[in-house]
């Protein structure tokens, strides 16, 4: 007798799901260690393409692109987290106020508008106000786009924190600022961390918006990879992809661990 949770065929579909999701990634990872210059023939295990990433002819271009990506993601995620935290405090703890619904819609606007539309709109906006597209425009566009991604986990975490903790602190002679700093902020920390991580990854991943607002000569890692792939997939791209994959896995693991720790302290 199998319980009500069992449905025949669900396990094979799950496995299929994982195969579809992983097969391309695993193949690319494997071929990144290919010793041959051809991307079709296997030429034995080698790290030559990893060496090529850091010392080859494209190293400078990709290095600069990676630096741009990283610094933009750091700044965009951090500012988006700060803005989203303030907004989440207002939306979750601020009770009812006029304009709350509109504020909620505004915060989530970047999620509702298709990314390509946001990209077009940003390009038009920056051109219309006469801003030179480049590093600055990418950063600003990312910051706005990342706010709802940071907002969601922070607001969700905040919803889960009962008002009585803060009241208990106030009851025990803490000022408003102390209650926030000593009680609410530590309890909110896992939400802040997942919000920041999500915003960081979203910024690091973004291709479409960046592609529109980057201007000439400015590259982030995704736009640089895209430009290179347009001329055919080269082995060094596979090495870069594998490295980025490793970074992503590192992030998921971090997020997972933070989340698990967060669950222990409700």
């Amino acid at each position, binding site marked *: 007798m199998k319980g009500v949770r069992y449905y025949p065929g669900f396990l094979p579909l799950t496995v299929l799901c994982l195969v579809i999701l992983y097969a391309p990634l695993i193949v690319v990872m494997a071929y990144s260690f290919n010793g041959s210059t051809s991307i079709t023939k296997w030429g034995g295990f080698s790290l030559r393409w990893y060496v090529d990433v850091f010392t080859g002819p494209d190293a400078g271009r990709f290095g600069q692109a990676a630096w741009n990506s990283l610094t933009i993601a750091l700044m965009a995620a951090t500012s988006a987290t700060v803005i989203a935290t303030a907004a989440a405090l207002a939306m979750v703890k601020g009770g009812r106020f006029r304009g709350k619904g509109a504020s909620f819609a505004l915060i989530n606007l970047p999620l509702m508008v298709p990314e390509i539309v946001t990209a077009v709109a940003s390009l038009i906006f920056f051109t219309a106000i006469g801003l030179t597209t480049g590093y600055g425009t990418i950063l600003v566009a990312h910051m706005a786009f990342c706010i709802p991604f940071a907002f969601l986990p922070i607001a969700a975490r905040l919803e889960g924190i009962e008002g009585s903790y803060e009241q208990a602190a106030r009851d025990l002679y803490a000022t408003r600022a102390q209650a926030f700093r000593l009680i609410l902020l530590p309890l909110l920390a896992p939400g802040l961390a997942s919000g920041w991580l999500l915003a960081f990854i979203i910024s690091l991943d973004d291709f479409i918006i960046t592609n529109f607002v980057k201007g000439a000569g400015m590259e982030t890692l995704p736009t640089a990879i895209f430009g290179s792939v347009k001329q055919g997939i080269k082995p060094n791209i596979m090495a870069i992809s594998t490295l980025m994959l490793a970074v992503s896995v590192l992030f998921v693991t971090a997020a997972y661990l933070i989340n698990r720790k967060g669950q*222990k302290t409700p």
Partner: protein
Amino acid sequence: MKSKMTTAIDIRDVVKTFGEVTALHGVSLGIADNAFFTLLGPSGCGKTTLLRLIAGFEDVTSGEIRLFGESIARLEPNRRPVNTVFQHYALFPHMSVIDNVAFGLKMQGMDLPARTARAGQMLEMVHLSDYADRLPAQLSGGQQQRVALARALAPAPKVLLLDEPLSALDLKLRQAMRVELKQLQEDTGITFIFVTHDQEEALTMSDRIAVMSAGQVQQVGSAQEIYEAPVNLFVADFIGETNLLQVEVHEVREGRATVTLPGGHRFACPSAPVAPGRHALSIRPERVTITPGADLSATVDRVVYLGSDLQVLVRLADGSPFTIRLQNAARTEVPGPGTRIGLHLEEGAARLLAD
């Protein structure tokens, strides 16, 4: 004698509205120092709101709250020398037990050695010294409850507020904690203001009880006064089990009324000040005895076995249902269903109520 007692909390004409809803309609209440005072009422009666107004989590809409003569109604909660034990304890989940207990002392500016010592004493008082370094989530419900008590008592508040602190515990633990709480109040000499919807809890622990309903205080008194001399229908019905009969009132004089019972018997009993007419008569089931040829005649419907007691469900002459309680003693004679019996109302069994 009452006037000589110090008043810890003096509540005057407090009104609290939430938008369109009025939670408290002009409540006035004096709470004596060194007392175990209970706010008792059904959910939504305003008792928790009143507690939160004293703690400072809500602002009064109008009225005054004084703590030993000083107005506190407009002080921030951290400026009020009162502490709260929250319903679900609200122990800070990211702090150890001892840090929780020491939190209020730290906020008051006590230095680390002093507050560690004081918090240690408090934990000893609630028998949790061995758990000082645990996190709240690692404790049982009863232990968390003790930590919440220790935390609220550590800063030696002038008044301790308890918001249904026993409601999350199981029955055995709840009963044990009642005794312990009362003991703690007597030992510390701090005024406890205890909020509950559980009348048994209120009756067993309190020096004085305020019964609340619909945002108003219905009656204030000792457990005995409230149980035996309820002032109105709500109090009589809410506290304990009672029979309510609509009876004809002939005259009321010097606190006693003459009424006609179902079956025609004339009867005199203590009364609230009411005008002649039809009013509710409360008759406590345990103050009724079975004797032939007495105040009321009835037919037995069924007998319910309750262990220490027996509940006899009967029907009066006019057909209205009525309950009596007998002690399940060896000598108790239990009438079988269908038996016609007479009921005698002992002194204090019946009381005429205001509506």
